[in-house]
């Protein structure tokens, strides 16, 4: 599961940089609006349904935050 989410994130943001330690996905601009839309749509294709209004967008600052969020939703 963790690997799947990492793969989806790299694909949505278009950069391996998202997996580097200490990267803030939001501040760095890696996860901008378009990447965020792509991420949500790719997760939905995997049966993971994230409604932006149901979660704190700050969960998307790090890869770990996104993985934790997905685990919580399952």
């Amino acid at each position, binding site marked *: 599961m963790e690997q799947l989410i990492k793969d989806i994130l790299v694909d949505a943001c*278009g950069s391996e940089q998202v997996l580097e330690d200490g990267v803030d996905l939001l501040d760095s601009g890696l996860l901008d609006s378009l990447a965020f*839309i*792509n991420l949500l*749509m790719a997760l939905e294709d995997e049966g993971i349904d994230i409604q932006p*209004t149901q979660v704190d967008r700050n969960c998307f600052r790090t890869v770990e935050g996104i993985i934790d969020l997905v685990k919580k939703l399952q």
Partner: protein
Amino acid sequence: MFLERFYENMRQNPQKIAVQQGEHTLSYQQLWQEACSLAAFLQEEGRSPVLVYGHKHPRMIISLLACLLCGRPWVPCDHSLPIGRMAEIARLCKAELLLLPEEAPQPLSLQKVKTMTWEDIPNSLTWTPPAYHKVTVAYIMFTSGTTGQPKGIPISIGNVENFAAWLLSHQELAAPAQRVVVNQANLSFDLSVADWCAALLSGGTLLLTTKEEQFQLGRFFQQVRQHQGALLVCTPTFLRLCLCDRSFCAQSLPSLQAVFLCGEPLSVPTAAQMKQRFPSLSLFNAYGPTEATCAVCGLLIQPQHLSQQQLPVGDLSHAAVTITLKDGEIYLDGDSVFKGYVGQPPLQGPYPSGDLGFIENGLLYCSGRRDSQIKYLGYRIDLEEIRQVLEKLPGIQQAVVTAQRDANGTVRRLAAYITPSLDGEVLRLQLREKLPSYMVPSLFLPMEQLPLSSNTKAITR
């Protein structure tokens, strides 16, 4: 006509809320009085363009109206602009005054520019109406330019009036504009001209929404619901983001009657999804460059358009200007078109937009650009400007900036190819001092990895 109409709306309904942002409100009367008071000061103070550095505080709209009242150009600078860029803007338009309507995120002082907070402004002066001309500059907006500098676009009162008359000639937009118009765009981005024109000229309320509210979509929807937003003005990217949430639908936002979209292409799937979520909503797709005041044409998307490959961007029988095609390029001529860039010779003849297009059954379609300009997240970016700024950074010998696109042709991200290879994180920080964040590439790669192509134009697009 702009000020007369605003004044008439104020006379008819002085207590009506003109501007709302969170808990801040301004009635038509308050807005008028505060604008007159500020205009009186600005009139005495000088003649130069007035830089206003803020985000979505209602005072931004007071400063806009005050500038219109005294005939000094309004130069809105959103908090997202880096100081380096603000300095360039001040220098290019020879601004001598900077207003701070709200607390700035960073300390700011610009050479040869007097900085004033709201509290510094005396309010004991009396405004005297100046002589108006249609050619008086209403505002100057800056966009990305090919020369490595931002490009200043002065828009006259006459341009704004022509655009507003066209906008409000569409009943599907004019009716909800009398209620509440929801703003999304930064005020330094000319899409916002549509929301303030629509609200203030129709006697409606302008609901300004902040970056923080848009970041937490639930808060944005709550604002629309609480204040009964009727007309949403936004970019297609923002609409796509809203659609990621199932609660963006007619049942949950029953007040929403129309959406005005401009700034980048609207895709068929997004329009179709929108029609499904809001079956009776008017979806208005518009087109126009900043040089021709927000939008020059548009149309209501109808079910039959959804079966096409791409959506039309305007009905030529009802455009704000004269639109012609020359060698596939869209040319614009008429009362919404500006007279020339800041510091450059005046425009001669119709304005060549640089956009490529075609006409079918009286409808205009866009098919790309003839230069290195792209649209990313609704923002207009000239890749050449980023390249030039990069090449001025210490250590960089050569740079190429490209836009990476997905299968639908939508720009997904910006990539910079540089030589010699330097730490991307360091470059990113340096660029952020000079360029807005949406212009800072997310990838920095060594030049050797640049996709080879015999045509350098193709790879920079």
